[in-house]
């Protein structure tokens, strides 16, 4: 049974139809990511779940209870914001105990919960610090601790890592994932970063223009995109029409688009016999992308991208002739 249910959710801002009949179910304990470009409606849906935005139509259920018209304070949902939103006039301890005091818990219980939350986000020794004296990463840890200290039914994370540098982001990704597992939380994470979504999620819902374009596990969404948008957004796929595919492979293709992941191409100076389709092309550009080298290759006037591991042994130069192979099962019909 679904723990969170969005039933036919519509949201308008004036004439702007931001969410178009969203139906979505989230299982208890899952780490779910709403992924998509800016303005696609992912944050709006999250804010609707939090109660910070009113929906224009539909119903939201949490643990079987209709929370559509409930105030945010009555939903028992924790939230971590992109800009931390810590209270500047309160120190770490006061920020964390703010909600607990409103619940009128005993001071012993408040102290215990605050201590546990601080330990969990590894901020011991910073209890008396004010947000202004903490780094961005530490502030986001406090925001995370404040989100979990209330023991919410659901933890919402609205692009919490987008204002943090790449190295720290990776460490926080690990922390969030660990805390999610340790506490057995149900978490809904919003991001526009497909790599982040891949690393963190149990399930990804890909948003585009107010609708869910595709849902699935990271592997499913990555390897089996169902639309050209999904293919373009998730895996930097080569998206080719049937004519381009014919020029590439020499075989007739049914009308429609075909998506091929850059890393599924095999490149070699020698003739390739192991792949279904083999062709020859010319390297037109090469761009290092961390541990991967991305080549632009012209094959019969069709420009494709191919990723290979960045080894100096196998490097090609611009203008080099290269044999390119790809397996049929890696040519995904959209």
């Amino acid at each position, binding site marked *: 049974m679904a723990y969170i249910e969005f039933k036919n959710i519509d949201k308008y801002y004036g004439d702007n139809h931001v969410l178009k009949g969203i139906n979505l179910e989230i299982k208890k304990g899952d780490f779910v990511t709403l992924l998509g470009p800016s303005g696609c409606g992912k944050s709006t849906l999250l804010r609707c779940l939090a109660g910070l935005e009113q929906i224009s139509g539909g119903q939201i259920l949490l643990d079987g209870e209709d929370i559509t018209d409930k105030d945010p*304070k009555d939903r028992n949902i924790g939230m971590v914001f992109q800009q931390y939103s810590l209270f500047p*006039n309160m120190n770490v301890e006061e920020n964390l105990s703010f909600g607990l005091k409103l619940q009128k818990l005993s001071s012993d219980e408040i102290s215990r919960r605050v201590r546990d939350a601080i330990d969990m986000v590894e901020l011991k020794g910073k209890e*008396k610090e004010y947000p202004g004296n903490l780094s961005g990463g530490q502030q986001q840890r406090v925001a995370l601790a404040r989100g979990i200290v209330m023991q919410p039914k659901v933890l919402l994370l609205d692009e919490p890592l987008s204002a943090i540098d790449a190295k720290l982001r990776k460490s926080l990704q690990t922390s969030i994932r660990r805390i999610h597992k340790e506490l057995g939380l149900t978490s809904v994470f919003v991001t526009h970063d497909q790599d982040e979504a891949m690393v963190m999620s149990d399930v990804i819902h890909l948003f585009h223009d107010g609708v869910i374009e595709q849902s699935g596990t990271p592997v499913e969404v990555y390897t089996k995109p169902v639309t050209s948008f999904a293919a373009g957004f998730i895996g930097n796929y080569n998206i080719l029409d049937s004519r381009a595919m014919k020029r590439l492979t020499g075989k007739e293709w049914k009308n429609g688009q075909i998506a091929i992941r850059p890393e599924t191409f095999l490149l070699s100076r020698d003739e390739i016999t192991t792949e279904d389709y083999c062709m020859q092309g010319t390297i037109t550009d090469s761009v290092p992308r961390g541990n991967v080298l991305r080549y632009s290759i012209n094959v019969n006037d069709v420009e494709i991208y191919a990723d290979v591991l960045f080894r100096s042994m196998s490097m090609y130069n611009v203008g080099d002739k290269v044999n390119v192979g790809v397996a049929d099962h890696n040519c995904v019909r959209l």
Partner: protein
Amino acid sequence: MRTEKKKSHVGAKIAIIVIIAYLLLPLIMTFIYSLFQEWIDIAPTGFTLAAYTELFTDPLFWKAVGRTVVISIIPIILCTVFVLLAMYVVVVYHPEWDKMIQILCTIPYAIQGVILPICVLSLYSSAPEPFGDRMFMLVATYMVVILPYVYQGIRNNLNGVGAPRLIEAAQMLGASKFYAFFRVVIPNIMGGVTISVMLAMAIVFGDFVIINTLAGGQFMTAQMYLYDIMKKSGQRTCAVIVVLFVVTLIISACAFFLQSKGKDRKDR
């Protein structure tokens, strides 16, 4: 490079000293003049504290100062409360009203000093109580005069702390919007509010035109007392100016002390 930096520091220090001297010189001269009977030659002669003794023993003066403080504080408190409530509605429920409120609150800037009390008098002098009451009119008029300063200070600070975000965060922790605004947002903008209040205080404290038009001779304030004394004795006039300056300084210091006390607690 280091020498250039040093030079610019020296230049900045000289500029600051010149500005401070320029601002303090009239006050120092006024103070000196209030302590001497004559100042015909280069140096003043006939040191005396008579002007201050007379001033401090004159019950009229203290009444006037007391009235000034009261008619300054009441409109400032009321105006601040009303603006905060209005801003609560704007921030929490109707952000689209912000532009309209800004225009409304800026209008008093455009009204010349004497026009406002005359308009108020002609509109409300025959109005029933409490609107026809001179004190009521005075307080209400001062509220209008200081509105732009109080509003702008509060608005800038609300924008600065990101009030909507803080309210949302507090809501997610179980607070109502009202509680979040007054218990989370307001403590974070108190520094800015204090500065706005001091500015408003300075404006009301120094007013003569409005009080003279609305209250006339029935209600003597410090400014009117000063105006009265000016006709009698130059030395006592200087003493009044110095005492009023000190009173304003004490009020400002108290306000900043209270505000910095809160800030210290925050920084500890």
